[in-house]
């Protein structure tokens, strides 16, 4: 049997189970909508302003770094799979290892640069540091 048929079957099951729970719940639960009940929760106060607030730039910086390193892990995986069998087939250690060392080396230089520029250093609120 093609394994992906079975994977697809679990995909169907893992959508059907939550949907059936939603269905059962919709048969059981009451519905008594009220204006005050349906306001956004803000610790019991009347909500102020919008939600699309400004947030720390750092979240964006680490997300950018992630894109680089995530693609890199995808490229490392094929190398790890063939590494041992290539060595057993008599390919020299330097031939197998050196390209990956250079590849990771370039990335580590990139990380060092990002580190130096404070991309992985959580930037503080300037007002908070003034009061200290």
């Amino acid at each position, binding site marked *: *049997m*093609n*394994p*992906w*048929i*079975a*994977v*697809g*079957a*679990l995909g*169907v*099951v*893992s*959508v059907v*189970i*939550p*949907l059936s*729970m*939603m269905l*059962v*719940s919709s048969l*059981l*639960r*009451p*519905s*008594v909508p009220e204006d005050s009940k*349906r*306001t*956004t*929760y*803000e*610790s019991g106060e009347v909500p102020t302003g919008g*939600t699309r*607030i400004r*947030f720390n730039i*750092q*979240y964006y910086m*680490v*997300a950018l*770094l*992630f894109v680089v*390193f*995530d693609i890199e*892990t995808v490229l*490392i*995986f094929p190398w*790890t*799979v063939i*590494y*041992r*069998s290539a*060595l*057993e087939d008599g390919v020299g*250690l330097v031939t197998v*290892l050196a390209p*990956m*060392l250079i590849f*990771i080396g370039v990335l580590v230089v990139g990380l060092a640069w990002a580190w130096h520029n404070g991309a*992985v250093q*959580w930037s503080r609120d300037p007002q908070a540091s003034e009061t200290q």
Partner: protein
Amino acid sequence: MATQTLPEFISEITGLGSFGVAGEFVAAIVGAGIIGTIMLTYTGIAGPWAKRKITAAFTDRYAANRMGPFGLLTIPADALRLLSKELIIPERVDRPAFDLAPLVVAGSALFAFAVIPMGSLFGINMQIADPEAGLAYAFAVASIATLGLTMAGYASANKFSFMGSLRAIAQNIAYEIPLVLTGASVVIFAGSLQMSEIVAAQTISGGAEPLFSIAGLGIPPWFAFVNPFAFVLFTIANIAEVGRNPFDIPEAPTEIVAGYQTEYSSVYFVLIYLGEFLHIFLGGAIAATLFLGGPAGPVLPGFVWFTIKIWGFFLLTQWARSAVPRVRIDQLIEIGWKGMLVLSFANLLLTAVIVGVIA
């Protein structure tokens, strides 16, 4: 050595295999239903009951003990209570993202169990599928949950939810890379991404050499024994990935109410909660497969050992919940990007060099 998976077994004994792909799919649905039911049962025990009991044991209390033996009937009572709650949809939420998020969180966690080898029970191999890209699939599907948390936080139009989902994203992406890189260091040993091959490389019956022998008993070369450093790194990254203490700032109840799930009620809350617990078991299952020989173990059937290992990981997260204080967001980012990432690169390269020199 290709062992028969659960859907293949069902399709053979029921004769569904003779109906071609459609018959195989029906057999696979039955198999997937069985695995899904088992995992939901574990989650049902863990969420409303075991979590309370374990926390109570740590804090010297009794917890649920009124309904049924050891309070076990709390489980159906809680299920009924939560499903029959009114579903409150705040007026400013973005639909349908708000409604889809619980589905994504719960569904993706269950979906990733497709490739996990759960060992044999009564001679049946409890694994849904064994594709060659098994490990890559498990990592890929497990990280879909981040998308669900992002949707939940952004669509709720609530400041607490928004902060919680930002933290969840920052945390998951920071610890995803150490997780995958330490996983890759195991692949160097095993030489395959196929889950059954990774398990076979750690078990003596699968053809691996014993690590060493004590009184004639061979100690299996579980990768946790071969490379304990990688196991520790993987466990830390795993706890962060499933968002448990000390890395539970996405939902930090004392700071941002409940994070991304603040506005969720009734069945939507159940699904997100369910997804989180499934995710803990999934993290335990991946760690067990990569480092603890999967379902391998003496005397008892493989499935029992698999259950013990994933519940062991659950117990670890609950112990950390009672014992370890939460990290701050700046500490979290620094531990992730400056500590874990560098250490996991070092681990990968050292593993490669050592394997290269020995082989």
